[in-house]
């Protein structure tokens, strides 16, 4: 695709995600959510969320904690299925296909929509096995050479390969926090997803590791549709092209990141961005 070609490597401060608003609006829509509600038992966590996620761009969800942004993210690859008593209503379509269609296989869906979690959660296996696990269960590699190739290229894309190439057989849990999170990103990439969901991927990391991950996200958007939940407005501003603001289970405002941060329409959004709620 015609992404910003010849993009300049940027430092943390200036990771530039400015994209021409019209450019963003012209992008094809990958995911469409309509009137999504979530109940945990008696408690309603989401009140009718409708949003469109553009292809090959970073969309960020911001809002105070407990606002439902993570809950909504977990709806997109049906992770809420694994929580007892969670009920999801409304529709979410991936390329026009309803992901809550009973005929749809959730396993296949999750192979197409990968996820990276708040806390780095490498499996208690070797670095290699961590990355190879997804391709293995999905049967994506025909042979060992194929698998090696997938592992190496995934680690490369996650910007981790150079750091770990000599210790691929050591446990993934032995890496530093930032490395672990990049390992988890590599693990998600290895399956070859079309969409990657990131649930506050930097909340457990120090600033330097955070900067590296943010840079990585910026690179990844060339090839993947990325949705990121973050509690940091600066991070949203730095990495995303589209931003949605959630509050108390409602989607308050969405739009091009620049607009949201410079010129929010809604009073609540304004208050949040100015630090008056949160």
């Amino acid at each position, binding site marked *: 695709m015609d992404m910003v070609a010849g993009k300049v490597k940027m430092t943390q401060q200036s990771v530039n995600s400015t994209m021409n608003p019209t450019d963003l609006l012209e992008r094809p829509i990958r995911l469409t959510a309509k009137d999504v509600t979530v109940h945990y038992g008696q408690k309603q966590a989401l009140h009718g969320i409708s949003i469109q996620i553009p292809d090959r761009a970073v969309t960020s969800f911001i809002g105070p904690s407990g606002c439902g942004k993570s809950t909504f993210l977990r709806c997109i690859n049906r992770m809420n299925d694994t929580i007892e008593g969670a009920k999801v209503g409304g529709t979410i379509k991936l390329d026009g296909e309803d992901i809550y269609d009973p005929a749809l296989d959730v396993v296949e869906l*999750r192979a197409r929509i990968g996820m990276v979690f708040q806390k780095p959660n490498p499996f208690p296996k070797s670095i290699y096995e961590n990355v190879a696990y*997804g391709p293995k269960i999905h049967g994506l590699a025909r042979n060992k050479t194929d698998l090696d190739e997938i592992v190496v290229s995934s680690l490369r894309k996650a910007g981790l390969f150079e750091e770990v190439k000599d210790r691929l057989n050591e446990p993934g849990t032995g890496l530093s926090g930032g490395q672990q999170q990049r390992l988890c990103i590599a693990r998600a990439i290895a399956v070859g997803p079309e969409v990657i969901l990131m649930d506050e991927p930097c909340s457990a990391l120090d600033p330097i590791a955070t900067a590296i991950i943010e840079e990585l996200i910026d690179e990844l958007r060339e090839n993947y549709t990325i949705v990121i939940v973050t509690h940091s407005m600066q991070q949203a501003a730095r990495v995303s092209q589209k931003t949605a603001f959630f509050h108390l289970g409602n989607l308050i405002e969405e739009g091009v990141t620049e607009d949201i941060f410079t010129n929010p329409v809604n009073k609540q959004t304004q208050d949040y961005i100015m630090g008056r709620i949160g």
Partner: protein
Amino acid sequence: MNALIVAALLLVLLGVSYQSGWSRSRNLVTADGVKVHSRPQYHGSYVAIWAMLPALAILALWAWFGGDLTHSYTVSQIPQDILLGLDQTGLNGTITRIDALASGYGVTGEIQPFEQSAGDALRSFQMLTFVGVLLVAAVAGGAALIYARSRVTARLRARNAVERVINIALLACSAVAILTTVGIVASLVTEAYKFFTFINPLDFFFGTVWNPNNAGTAGNWGSYGLLPLLTGTLMITVIAMLVAVPVGLMAAIYLSQYAHPRLRAVAKPMIEILAGIPTIVFGFFALVTVGPFLRDLGNLVGLSINATSALTAGVVMGIMIIPFVSSLSDDILNQVPRTLRDGAYGLGATKSETIRNVLLPAALPGIVGAFLLAVSRAIGETMIVVLAAGNSPVLRGNPFEPVATITVSIVNQLTGDTDFAGPQSLVGFALGLTLFVITLCLNVVALYIVRRFREQYE
């Protein structure tokens, strides 16, 4: 009766001393208005502790030595010529008769004059010593009371003193646990040592024949080879684990990962009922139901299975251990953080793939620890094996035949008589020591693993 009098007197002493400390403390407040360090109830307790300790100590001494003293007094009352004509049983009989006479209850048969006089003497002796001991205890308690009372002043840190006593009492209670271990080790080691003075340890640990000669005398003790018992124990343990581990682990997995909460709420306690059933019940079940069933089943497929065999005992023991394995595994599976499971689901793994590839490997150390604990339990289990394993201490490898285990042989050799003179009964302690060491090693390793596992995910 006597015990009631003693208890009543002790209660009186307790009440009086507490009251005296308490009232003195109250007077302190009214007398000079100085700030009193401790509240009156602490002064009361302080005096009470002071008063009770010497009284209790004297009573304890009497309880310890009083019986022997009375016994020797009674013996001294029997005329010398009669005493010489009595053997041990006769002496005991005579003493019982004298006791009965002294307590005012009649005896059958002709009462000999010496019995009557000894009975009367014993009666007054008992009366005298009882009153004497009570008096001494009361005087000691009273003296201590007066001393402690004189120490009650405004500045006395009675609360700290009382709390120190409480602290020491608590420490003593936790020392009981240590003492139990020390007691176990000491009794096993000393008695086993005595056994090894009869039988060469090498013959015990590496002997292949178990054939104690229970009526034997020196030079003809019989053979005490551990190996047949050890193989029997191991065979039953292996069979038990083959039953318990798959069923217990899969049940834990299903309950914690798949089952509807309502099923879990019903099934979990139901399975735990199995854990509460006494082993003797399992033994009976094995003996009268499972054994014959396995025998008939064997006949059906052309196998010769004994009704009491390693298989019967092992299967039933496995059933007994199922809840143990399942509840430990359940605990451990629940300790694996949710994020790991989420990671696998997020990659598109199915539930069983997540469980097999992520959950179980992550929980493996903990589960291994749990299995080791289960093995240690199986090795030490007694009643099922006593009833259902057939008690045939022969070295062989066929699980369909009767076997004997270490625990069975302990029960057989130690029938409760205290005569620990020959190797026939002493071998029970050598076997017990072996059992203790084996299970201790398993437990230490298992508990260490489980502890490390918990720390890993904390």
